[in-house]
Structures are given as structure tokens and as C-alpha cells.
């Protein structure tokens, strides 16, 4: 696939190199890091906001990163229909920036959780669906604030629009108290995606599973054919 993936490097991002490795070395697309102080994305067909603790997450997670100099370019890219994926802290930033609805608050168990989770794939878009990705994925999480919340009206719309892309399911179950077991969502237009689990940690034989591969591939497919 000839495409360019821009991975945004916020101060405190710590999955930036993992995302780079996943897209460049494992998926074989052209990928590079874009520093948060830049104001332009350069040549980019897709944007990834990686996991980490941007700005230390000392305010709310993602609350300061959304004001980074690079964010207007990311917002404009998304507004043009460009595909954007936020993983973990990247998901939190997308919610803070208003590119995705809802918010992520402290895990219901009040503790950071690093473990495998089971995800049920929802039929959401042409590429994010059971037939394309598989009905169930096992992928790790690592977060302290992944408890997805949204107001009742918003939830209704989210479900009605089929915006949920993955949900926590058995046997590992819901690790953080997220409403409706939501682990990942997309925007209405279908070009902005966010999830708390880390697909980039489940893509190679050394990992416990390689279930992250079909998920990341579905994202790359969304580049060529917007919903």
C-alpha cells in the first residue's frame, strides 16, 4: 500500500515508537513521527494519535494535548474526511478535542489496569465489521482512565448510528466500567476512530495474539475508501 501515516508525538507520548513500528515495519506502509510543535502534517493520508501520558495527564487525560500547535492541522484533516485513529491516550485526546463524543474517566476499580481483554467487533462500517475483522479479538489494555462515559441522549445516538466499533466482552469482561461495555467508537462521518485497547501490541508472533492486525488493516482500508 502506498500511503503516508503521520504519527503525532506529544510530549509524554510513549507508544509513538510502537505505532511507528506497527505501521512501518509490520504493516509495511510509509509512516513517520510528527512533533506536536509542528503546525502542518506534511504529506499524510492517515493520522494516528498514539498512547502515552501527554503532558503527564496532570489535568484531565488529553486536556492539554488538544491545544498543541499540531492540533488545528489534525482537526482540519479530520474535517476534510481524512482518517484519524486515536489509541488509548490518543482516544482521550480525540474526545477532549471534540472529534469524538463522550469522555474517558477513572477506571471503576480506581487502579491502572494492564491485561488482555476480549473485544466483540460490531458491524459499524464497511471495514470495521465482523466479516472483515473477525467477530472477536483479544488485545491488551493499559490505562488508568478508560471508563467511557456519555450522556443518555448521546449514547442513544451513538448506538443508533452504529458508532461503537468494539465492546468489552467475556471471558475477560469489562475492565474499567465503561458504559455499554464500549471499548472503541467512531464519529458519525466514519473517518475518526478511537479505542482504549492497544492493537499495536497484538500484531507479531511474539505477542499473545495477532488480533490487532485486522483492526489496523481496517483502519488503513478506510484511507482509500471513506464511508
Amino acid at each position, binding site marked *: 500500500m502506498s500511503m503516508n501515516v503521520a504519527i503525532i508525538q506529544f*510530549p*509524554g507520548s*510513549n*507508544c509513538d*515508537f*510502537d505505532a511507528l*513500528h*506497527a505501521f512501518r*515495519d509490520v504493516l509495511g506502509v510509509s509512516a513517520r513521527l510528527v*512533533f506536536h*510543535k509542528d503546525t502542518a502534517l506534511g504529506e499524510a493520508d492517515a493520522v494516528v494519535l498514539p*498512547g*502515552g*501520558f501527554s*503532558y*503527564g*495527564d*496532570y489535568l484531565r487525560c488529553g486536556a492539554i494535548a488538544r491545544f498543541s500547535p499540531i492540533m488545528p492541522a489534525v482537526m482540519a484533516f479530520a474535517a476534510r474526511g481524512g482518517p484519524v485513529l486515536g489509541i488509548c491516550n490518543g482516544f482521550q485526546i480525540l474526545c477532549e478535542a471534540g472529534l469524538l463524543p463522550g469522555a474517558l474517566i477513572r477506571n471503576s476499580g480506581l*487502579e*491502572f*489496569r*494492564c*491485561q*488482555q481483554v476480549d473485544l466483540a467487533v460490531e458491524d459499524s462500517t464497511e471495514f470495521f465489521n465482523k466479516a472483515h475483522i473477525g467477530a472477536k479479538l483479544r488485545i*491488551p489494555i*493499559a490505562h*488508568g482512565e478508560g471508563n467511557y462515559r456519555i450522556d443518555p441522549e448521546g449514547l442513544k445516538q451513538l448506538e443508533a448510528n452504529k458508532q461503537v466499533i468494539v465492546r468489552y466482552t467475556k471471558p475477560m469482561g469489562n475492565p474499567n466500567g465503561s458504559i455499554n461495555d464500549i471499548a472503541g467508537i467512531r464519529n458519525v462521518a466514519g473517518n475518526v476512530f478511537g479505542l482504549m485497547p*492497544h492493537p*499495536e*501490541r497484538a*500484531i*507479531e508472533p*511474539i*505477542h*499473545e495474539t495477532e488480533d490487532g492486525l485486522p483492526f489496523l488493516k481496517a483502519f488503513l482500508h478506510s484511507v482509500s475508501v471513506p464511508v
Partner: protein
Amino acid sequence: MPTSLPPNPAPELNVTITPELVKKHNILPDEYETIKRFLGREPTLTELGIFSVMWSEHCSYKNSKPVLKGFPKEKADPNSPGQILVRMQEENAGVVDIGDGWGICYKIESHNHPSAIEPFEGAATGVGGIVRDIFTMGARPVALTNSLRFGDLSNPTVQRLFRGVVHGISHYGNCLGIPNVGGDVYFDPCYEGNPLVNALCLGVLRHSEIKRGKATGVGNPVYYVGAATGRDGLGGAAFASRELTEESKEDRPAVQKGDPFMEKLLLEACLEMMAVPGLVVGIQDMGAAGLTCSSCETASRGNSGVIIDLDKVPQRETGMNSYEIMLSESQERMLVIVVKGREKEIEDIFAKWDLHAAHIGEVTEGNDMVVKHKGVVIAHIPAKALTDEGPTYYRESKEPAYLAETRAWRPESIADLDSAGIQSALLKLLADPSIASKAWVYRQYDHHVMASTTVAPGSDAGVFRIRLEDGKQKFIAISNDCNNRYCALNPYRGGLIAVAECLRNLACSGARPLAMTDNLNFGNPYKPEVFYTIKESVKGLADACTFFDVPVLGGNVSFYNENPTGAVDPTPTVSIAGQIDREECITTQYIKDGFETIILLGDWPNELGASYFLKTIHGLKTGDTPEIDLNRERALHDFIRSQIDAGRVAAAHDLSEGGLLVALAEMLFSPDRTFGAVLTIPMDAQRHDVRLFGESQSRALFAVPPAKTAAVLDAAKKAGVSAIIIGRATIQPELKLNGTNTWSAESLRKAWSEAIPSVMER
């Protein structure tokens, strides 16, 4: 040396040095006379403070130096892989070769006293400090582990400390994005009030990228980078070098406050700076004793002098005097010496990361550390007097009286187990917090970040991949070990076993050992009975390292681990990294398909002393530590590795705390599912408790596919290693022993996995 210094600009520092003041700085009258000889005059108060931190045990090893001499610092065999590239005590951390021009660099360090007072910050800054020691060497940190020791978990204060320490490690390490791949946690009443918090960091670097903590090149600028200096952690090194008392809580300012976000920026900025060819002359973190230690140590290593101006030091509080600035242990700071004329390059990099980079001084002719404040020289000391010429003591040693009594203990003094006793003993042992699952701990640590963790915490050793820039990969295993009960009941043998067990864990993971780092946690060395345990257990470590040709890369000494009721058990925690040469050889302790033959390597046990069985079932800490024959141990390791290499082993697990049945049960608890086993163990020849729960050394369990069993037994015979088939694994989750005992493996797993959460989530 100037014969006098001008008055300090801070009037409160211009005081006469009285014997009381000297004593308050933990400096002995003789040591004070030595200081005066070095200076040719009375020291100023700031200088006294500088000597007190640099000559503390934490920085100077004054009471431990003589016993550390026995550690091998290099490979005896110059042709073997894993040669040492930077030796113990040469730099902030040692480096060992992993091939193809790459090395790994690792070290373990304690933060016991700060964690006793302020568990969250104490443990968090413990992680921060050791991570800086590693990236100072030019290495990118890629793994963390830790060794933790607490009092009895039923004590609410212990629960608070345990929770706080785990949260602190989690908070700091997770934010940095360095996976926590393993560690060990034990609970014993001896640690009440004085927990042990030992954190290890491992980094990776090219041979050509190794950086040194040296100040060289007269006129080269000295930079202070990272966070601003505050009054926190004042004199922390000195605080760590005395006993905890009831009043220690008032020492809270001696505990530092950590900011992992700042550390992450500092890490990235420093690695970026060190990657610029020829820019950095020397670099050292400001850890214990802060600015004092980093400036005099870099000067001393470089055989240079250094001058620094405290007015240029970034400060986050107003009105700090020179004593406070020099002794502050504020976190996330580094000292860097760069090539003169290239100041802009370092300043640009730190501006990019929004960090301070203050030009605070220069490398000078001579060998003195000169410190100025407000235009006045406030300290002028020969750097080597602080670093190399501190006192060294050979302490008095005396065997503790209790050892004669505990050695004489015999199993005949307790009743043997009947089958009902066996039934409940296994459940109780699996639910002992020291043996029970530590998932409650490690699920709070990000152990997947960097996407390279190959064997997550929970098996014999953590295993992770190192991705080299040229697409090649290396696999590293790491294990931490130390059984305090063994060290308390036979310090020398306890030391030998700590190393042997760690190596056994590595062998079971498929790894050959590289080098060891150790954290010597003991009580007050001025007590002869305590010093005896130091001397003996360190000799045990050193003898074992020499025997197995595992050099010591460095580590940390933590004395004065005492609470008002006495010293902690001798606890020389060891951590050894190993290399797994082929990916296929990565082995875990878990049953894979439920059809394997189970083989006991190393014969039946014949001892019960110092065991967890005695602790958990009889409430005893007595008997002699199990015997160990190093030749037999080595034969076992070689055999384990040879069979893994031949592709015959589905699972391998070392036998340690709890003995045979506990180890077997642990193999059934695969992360994905619970297996069972049918065991046939001849019980007539021996006491049942000894046979099932004794902790005799040099033993391991294999799970082998049935088709390969004969080959393994045959190879064992040739290698002279005892190998006995004791049963087979089953898919049905039931553990059956001789038709006399049957346990539901699910209920065993429940006891094992819920022991810690049931206390911590109440």
C-alpha cells in the same frame, strides 16, 4: 587549597562547627579530623554538608567496600559471549555485551527508607532514579523490574505501604512507557515498618554509544539540565544511611517528589543530545546527593577540577542558600559536560523539549571542586577527597546466637502430615501471600508497552525482545530472587542459593546468564551480628558468581534497614539478565496442552529447614537452610538448557518456596486456562511433609510431550542428572496424588489468585 574562605552570603551558614553539629551530620570525630587534613582548615557548614552526604554509606560504601571485593567483575573466560564492557563501580551502571555491537546496561537500586515514610513518592522516585542511572550511560531504558518486601499482609499499615509502593511504581513507570517485565514480592514480619523497595532498570545501547560520567577538557562548559531545584529531598543520602526511628516521619522533607512527565522529557532530550556525534563529553544524573555528587564524581573520574556557580542553577523556591542547593535531591535533573563552542546545540535540544539547560560552570585545571554563590567561593574541596578517599571500615563481626539453636532444629520435633494434612497444606501454601499470584501487583504496571514483552510477569523470568535498528532482534530474560528466610538461617548458603535460584529460573526460561546486579539490604553494620550476616551472605553471592562465571555489574548497598524492634532479615536481592539465543527456546512454566509427561529433575527432597511449609503450616522460622552443591546445580542448568535447545520441553519450572506440590500447581495455572495432573509419588521412604513440601535445592520440573519423554530420560542419564517421571498433565482440571488426595485445580487456583486481592480489595 585556600587557607580560608570568605563568609557565606547566607548569614545563617556562617556558624562555628561544633562537635554536636559534626555528630548531627553523621560524621565521626576521626572522620572530621580527616576532613580538616584534606582542607588544611575547618570546613564551612556547606562543606560539612557536602562531606556528610558523600561519605554516607549510600554514596561511599564505607562499611561495605571490603566485603564487595570478592565480586568477580569480569568473565573468567575471555572467549565466552557476554563480555563486560563497563565494569562494576566504573560508571553509573555496568554494561554487558549481547552481540552484534550492542550491549545492555542494568542496575538495581533501593528506595527503602523514603518508601517507609512516604510509600507512593518513595517508590516512584526510586524508579525515576534508577531510570536516570541507565539513560546516563547512553542507553534507552527498555525494561523495569522490582523486588519488594513488606511485613505481614494482615497488618493494615503493611497494606497501606504495599498499596502505596505499588501505586508509586505504577504511576512513574507507566508514564515513562517502560514495561515492567517482572519482579518478586515477599511478606515477612521482619519487614514491618521497614519495607524494601528495590527497583531495576535495563537499557540497550550500541558499544560505540556508551557515555561516561567524566568531566574532561579544561574550559568545557558544565550544564545543568532538567527540573529546577527545590528544598525537597534535602540530605536524602544521609537519611538513607541511618536507622528508621519513631521520629523518622519528621524526616519527610528528606523524601523527594517525583514528576514522571518531566523525566520522560528529560529522557528523550538526553537521548537526542547523546545521539549527536561528539557533542557530549560526560553526563551524570543528579541522584543521591544531587548537585554535590554529580559535580565531584564527574571531576574525580575525569581527573579534572570543576567550578560551578549556584546563581545559575534553576531554582523553584526563593531564598535557597548554598547548603540547600548543594544537598537538595530534587528529581529529574542531570549534569552534562559538552564540548566548548557547541553550547547552542545542547540549548536547542532542551528548548525543543521545554526543559532547562543552564550553563552553570566549567571544567578546570587541577582536581578541586569549587562552588560559588553570589560571587563568593563557598566551597573548595579536592574532588577525590569526596569520592575516593573517604573512610573505609572493617567492621567487627559475630555469629548471631540464634543460629546455633535454629541449626539444631530437626523435623522430628513436629508431627508428619496425614492425607488430610496434605490436603489442607497445599491450599494454605498457595494462599500464602508470598507464594500466591502477584497479578494484583503487575496488572497495575504497564508490562506491554514497547510491544516487545514476550513472557509477561508470572512465569520464572520475564522475557522481552530488543529490536535492533538493523532489523535484528535479541531476546533477554530477567529474574529477581532472594529468600530472606534462607539468608536469616544460614547467611552464606542463603547468598549462594539466591544466585543459584536466579540462574535456575533463567535456565527454565531457556536463557544463558549474562551478569548480575544486586541490592544488599541489611541492618545496621555497626552491630557485629548484623555485620556477620552481611559478610557471610555477600561471600555466598560472590562465591556463586565466581563459580558460575557470572560477573557482577554493580548494584546498591542499603544498610540501616531496622525498625524499632530490630534489623530486617539479611536480604541481598539479586537480579540476573540472561540471553535466549533462539526465539524457539523461549520457555514458560505453564502446561501447554494437558498431555505432557511430568518429570522431576534433581531427585527427591530431604530437608524441611527454612521452608515455607514450616512458616505457613507451623508458624516456624527455623531449621537450617537447604544444602546446595554448586556442581550439581550447574549440571542441572546445563541439562535444562540442552533439552530446551533440543526442542523437547513444553514447560520448565524451578522448585523453590513451597517445594514440589506448589511448583506443580503453579504449572497448571496457565494464563489462558487451568489444567490438571495425575501424580504418582512414592511416599513410604520418607516423611510426607519433607517429600511434598521440602525445599531441597537444584531441582526443577519439566513438562515434556509424551513422544519426547524417552529422549529426555536418556539424555538425563548421560548427563548424570536425576530425572524421575512423577505423573502426567491432564485436561481435566483436577490434581490427583496417589489415589489418596484429589484437589479441584480451579479451587487451588482460586486460593492462589485471590489471596492478595481478598486483602487489598476489602
